[in-house]
């Protein structure tokens, strides 16, 4: 069945209208506001799934804002939604829906909740807009919405000094990153008088200024995605924000990662194959640059995680390592663009984006559950929680196995793809990746024993299980992880495969707008 062609616009408009209405509705009644927010997100998620079904069936969808058809010098903004962007939209909508379900009872005794839900809806609109837009300046505006909304949410518990400082550190780095992106967009506009990604990709001659713009864009967006040299904000903000916000922040970070992909694979698609300096093709050069940063962030993430005592900071460093795995897959896919194992690496990297978002998200929710039940954050003062928090322990085991990439869970499928393809590219990469994955497993098992096993601590006598809605939210994530762990081909063949082809097939992306036109 075909869906109306303005669905991409609705997908961004609905969370915005929800966000504008939430302050008014929350003056009526609190429960009504929670129901309204969940309703808005459920509608939005179903629209995203419908659009995904439609895109996977008949290719890229474009939607022009303000006119039915395109006047040649592309003046209006248009959304261009291909398999890769709808893949990211699916991940973000699942994550935010689970986060809002979880925060129904997790945030019960906090004040200022109407602003909290408004900001979460705005953050959703920002992520979805960033993922689906086909216009560079529009990408910058939505990047800014995501940074401001997530910075305000990080500093939600203003009574804690860490959260406020983490929020300040996050907004300073995001503002700098966004200014670099704006500067690069200004350079591209100054040369080609065009803001549309497809038109820019078509008209790009890869002059010296374009190289500078490429460096600026990659540095800024990789900084926002948490790659090593500028990853310091990630453990601070993930560690000191409320757990539901850490979960939603994972989606925001992945949107910046999508930004890196869109810039490298589509905006500079034509320029990738040109032979740049010292006779190596541009894509090999950028590919190895990303692989180097990825390996660095895997190693730094795992080592720093080993020495942490705060539960959430430990998971945050695990997340840094996982982002390293994604970039490893994508960098290998870029460096070996033509070959078979290059495609396998790219698919592994993209599949890992989906898996890791859920795994790290589940671990953050488990940390939130422990904080909710015991008001305890540091590991060495926890112990013997398994006795009276049965379900949370089960969810922790699932999350632990998934992040470490153990067979029954979905982490294994994507990491296996990454290992086998990077092995053919260069054996050392695969060896380092496997070793760090084992270290990650060892570290999480240590956490499992220190937090859940061990003697029954007197002060946790009256700890009881977390309320139903939190268990339900964790259950959704756990079931998705287990299902895609047991049958990875479902998602691999009909979502990850088209997404990888959409990324590599940039000429099809361009022909939608420029040559073909509508």
């Amino acid at each position, binding site marked *: 069945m075909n869906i109306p062609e303005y669905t991409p616009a609705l997908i961004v408009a609905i969370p915005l209208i929800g966000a504008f209405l939430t302050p008014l509705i929350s003056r009526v009644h609190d429960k009504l506001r929670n129901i309204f927010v969940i309703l808005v997100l459920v509608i939005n998620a179903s629209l995203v799934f419908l659009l995904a079904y439609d895109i996977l069936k008949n290719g890229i969808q474009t939607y022009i804002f303000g006119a039915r058809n395109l006047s040649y010098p592309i003046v209006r903004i248009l959304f261009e939604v291909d398999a890769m962007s709808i893949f990211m939209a699916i991940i973000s909508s699942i994550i935010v829906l689970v986060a809002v379900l979880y925060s129904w009872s997790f945030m019960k005794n906090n004040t200022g909740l109407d602003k909290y839900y408004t900001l979460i809806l705005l953050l959703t609109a920002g992520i979805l807009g960033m993922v689906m837009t086909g216009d560079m300046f529009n990408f910058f505006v939505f990047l800014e919405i995501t940074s*401001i909304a997530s910075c305000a949410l990080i500093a939600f518990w203003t009574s804690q000094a860490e959260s406020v*400082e983490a929020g*300040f550190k996050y907004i*300073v780095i995001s503002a700098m990153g966004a200014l670099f992106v704006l500067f690069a967009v200004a350079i591209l506009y100054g040369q080609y008088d065009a*803001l549309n990604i497809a038109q820019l990709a078509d008209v790009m001659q890869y002059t010296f200024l374009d190289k500078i713009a490429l460096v600026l864009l990659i540095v800024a967006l990789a900084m926002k995605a948490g790659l090593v040299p500028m990853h*310091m904000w990630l453990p601070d903000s993930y560690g000191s924000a409320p757990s539901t916000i850490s979960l939603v922040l994972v989606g925001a970070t992945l949107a910046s990662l999508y930004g890196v992909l869109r810039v490298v694979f589509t905006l500079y698609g034509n320029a990738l194959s040109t032979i740049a300096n010292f006779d190596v093709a541009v894509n090999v050069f950028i590919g190895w640059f990303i692989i180097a940063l990825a390996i660095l962030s895997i190693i730094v993430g795992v080592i720093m995680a080993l020495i942490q005592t705060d539960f959430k900071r430990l998971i945050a460093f695990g997340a840094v390592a996982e982002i390293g795995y994604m970039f490893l897959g994508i960098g290998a896919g870029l460096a070996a663009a033509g070959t078979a194992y290059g495609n396998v690496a790219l698919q592994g990297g993209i599949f890992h984006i989906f898996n890791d978002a859920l795994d790290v998200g589940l671990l953050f929710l488990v940390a939130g559950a422990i904080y909710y039940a015991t008001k305890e954050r540091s590991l060495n003062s926890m112990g013997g929680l398994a006795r009276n928090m049965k379900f949370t322990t089960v969810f922790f085991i699932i999350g632990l196995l998934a992040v470490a990439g153990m067979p029954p869970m979905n982490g294994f499928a994507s990491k296996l793809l990454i290992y086998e393809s990077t092995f053919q590219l260069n054996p050392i990469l695969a060896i380092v990746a496997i070793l760090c994955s084992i270290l990650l497993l060892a570290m999480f098992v240590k956490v499992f024993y220190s937090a859940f096993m061990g003697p029954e601590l007197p002060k946790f006598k009256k700890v009881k299980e977390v309320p139903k809605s939190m268990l339900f939210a964790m259950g959704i994530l756990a079931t998705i992880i287990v299902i895609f762990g047991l049958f990875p081909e479902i998602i691999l063949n009909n979502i990850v495969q088209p997404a990888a082809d959409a990324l590599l097939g940039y000429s099809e992306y361009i022909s939608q707008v420029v040559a073909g036109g509508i």
Partner: protein
Amino acid sequence: MIYNIPYIAVVGLILLGMYALVFKRNLIKMVIGITLIESGVNMFLITLGYRKESIAPIYTSSPGGIMSLPVPQALTLTSIVIGVAVTALMLSLVIHIYRHYGSLDAKNVRRLKE
């Protein structure tokens, strides 16, 4: 012939802002640094849209003649309001940091251990 003087001014503004951001330890000076870089990037965006001897692209009782480009001006309008929003948020966070730590010096605002 002003060859590229506006771009030199843009570079000057951005470097001033970066100097304040990198070397100054007072948090408010860092916020001022970011605002300086913001205005530098906005100025760069505006100077891209100027044509020689052109007037503003407004038709109401306009003397007629070549018009400068309207798109960079619209982009700069958006970027300025984004700058206001980011600065407002940063300053409110600085107020909270001052309440918690009692000082604005970035050196001893280091509760988060590395």
